[in-house]
């Protein structure tokens, strides 16, 4: 119950700033819409470019991407690197009898849920407007496994971004690393296009990295493109990444926090 109360208190804070959430959501909305317009033009010109993906599948992918981009792409890294480490805000966290990583977890989750809710509303609106063009029908077992994949995707995204954030304990100019990370995520997570559209080598790299398990696999799972065995395999790989990243975070945190000087505080 204590954790729920801490979560709800943070939710109030994020809810008080819902207009800021809306602005960030719009950014998550525009890119997928633009990409869909591009592919709609290509399909219109060339017919079915990829045999396993018709235009309706592509549309569902991008509209689900609006939800996934808002809900699953954690944006805690700048908070951690800039405000907490470089500006010294970490001082007020590490003297609390509560782990820093979980305080940041409860800070971030409400923002994702609020922006994710905007995404779901957008999906419903498009579904009403476009009817069967956006239809997805899935058996309950697939839905349950897909929900698990989305939860694990969130955890994976969170631990990755926390590690990126605490890198500022060693790196003075953290923003360069953040930019590189953004580019890598855009390419390999499936934010540009479904991984099937990429060349084989790039796709193989993408499946070897954790990023496709944050966006691409949650999306195709919800589109019914994975069978139960595939989904269980995805959950297994996500679990391994989560355990690995959590372990790496703890290791880096233990070493890095000794370097914190609390400058600015």
């Amino acid at each position, binding site marked *: 119950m*204590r954790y729920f*109360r*801490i979560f709800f*208190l*943070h939710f*109030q*804070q994020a809810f*008080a*700033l819902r207009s800021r959430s809306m602005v960030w959501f719009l950014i998550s909305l525009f890119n997928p819409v633009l990409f869909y317009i591009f592919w709609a033009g290509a399909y219109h010109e060339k017919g079915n470019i990829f045999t396993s993906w018709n235009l309706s599948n592509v549309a569902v992918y991008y509209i689900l991407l609006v939800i996934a981009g808002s809900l699953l792409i954690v944006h805690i890294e700048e908070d951690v690197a800039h405000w907490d480490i470089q500006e*010294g805000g970490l*001082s*007020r966290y*590490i*003297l*609390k*009898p*509560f782990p820093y990583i979980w*305080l940041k977890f409860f800070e971030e989750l409400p923002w994702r849920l609020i922006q994710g809710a905007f995404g779901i509303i957008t999906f419903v609106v498009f579904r009403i407007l476009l009817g069967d063009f956006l239809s997805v029908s899935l058996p309950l077992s697939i839905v349950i496994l897909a929900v698990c994949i989305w939860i694990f995707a969130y955890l994976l995204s969170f631990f990755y971004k926390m590690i990126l954030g605490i890198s500022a304990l060693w790196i003075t100019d953290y923003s360069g690393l953040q930019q590189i990370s953004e580019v890598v995520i855009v390419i390999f997570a499936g934010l540009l296009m479904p991984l099937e559209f990429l060349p084989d080598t790039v796709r193989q790299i993408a499946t070897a990295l954790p990023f496709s398990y944050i966006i691409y696999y949650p999306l195709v799972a919800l589109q019914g493109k994975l069978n139960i065995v595939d989904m269980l395999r995805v959950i297994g790989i996500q679990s391994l990444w989560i355990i690995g990243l959590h372990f790496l975070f703890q290791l880096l945190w233990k070493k890095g926090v*000794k370097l*914190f*000087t*609390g400058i600015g*505080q």
Partner: protein
Amino acid sequence: MVISLSHLKKYYKVHQKEPGFMGSLRSLVHRKYQTVKAVDDISFSIAEGELVGFIGPNGAGKTTTLKCLSGLLYPTSGIVSVLGFTPFDRKNAYLKQIALVMGQKNQLWWDLPAQETFLLNKEIYEIEDVQYKKTLRDLVELLDVEALLKVQVRKLSLGERMKMELIAALIHSPRVLFLDEPTIGLDVVMQKNMRDFIREYNARKKSTILLTSHYMEDVKQLAQRVIIIDHGRILYDGKLEALVKKFAKHKVLSIVLDEYVTPDKLEAVGDLVEYNFPKAVIRVPRSASNVAAAQLLEKFPVDDLNIEEPDIEDIIRDVFTQKK
């Protein structure tokens, strides 16, 4: 002893770069570092319930010491013990008994009333409902902020925010309180309110308080014991009155004259610090103050005479100057 600190050192390695483009290139190949001794071999201990003033100029090492004591920083060497814990282990049992309050640095949620942050701290510190309500009621009463509890933090004045910060920091009733510049940026009225609160809190809760401040008034009003630090080393640790006796080598004679006397005649008695007829201020060696006073009364048309200790600010300034 609640706080015990032995041979604490905290050194930083700071990168030094030569000026200009060539300096940048050189630093790529060969980086030069300088060791800054923020705290250099200091030792002291503080008993339960003591309120100690920790003073020194900017960069003296006050805040670094406080950060080492609270557990924020790992010391380079030395033994630090607070309430029997090693602070930088940051054990929950330790963190629940201390608070570090830094002036103008906030933990309050900006867009919500301060009481939401108090509730968050209640959960984080696992405070029982009854205890939470009692502590909150006491603090609200002491700081007189009942009307502000439901106001968004961004709408509060700096002084009101500082009061709320104190409540947030004290809601778990810490046994040890580290206050770093708690009155910085506040107007004189609010400074006084804050001092009154700290004094009253110390008296009521018997908390051990270590206070740093740039304002000597804070230290004069609150602390019986002071620790003076400069360049990372302790220059003085003892009672405030003893500091005056130890370091004040002069006394100040303030006189009011009936008739005008030329300044050169007054200078014969001592160092004429100020002369604005009919008032004059003369500084004399401590041991000669009685003789000088008698001389003034005997040889000059003196209407009034006072023998005073120099200002504590002046004494401390002298301590720092002598050290340099």
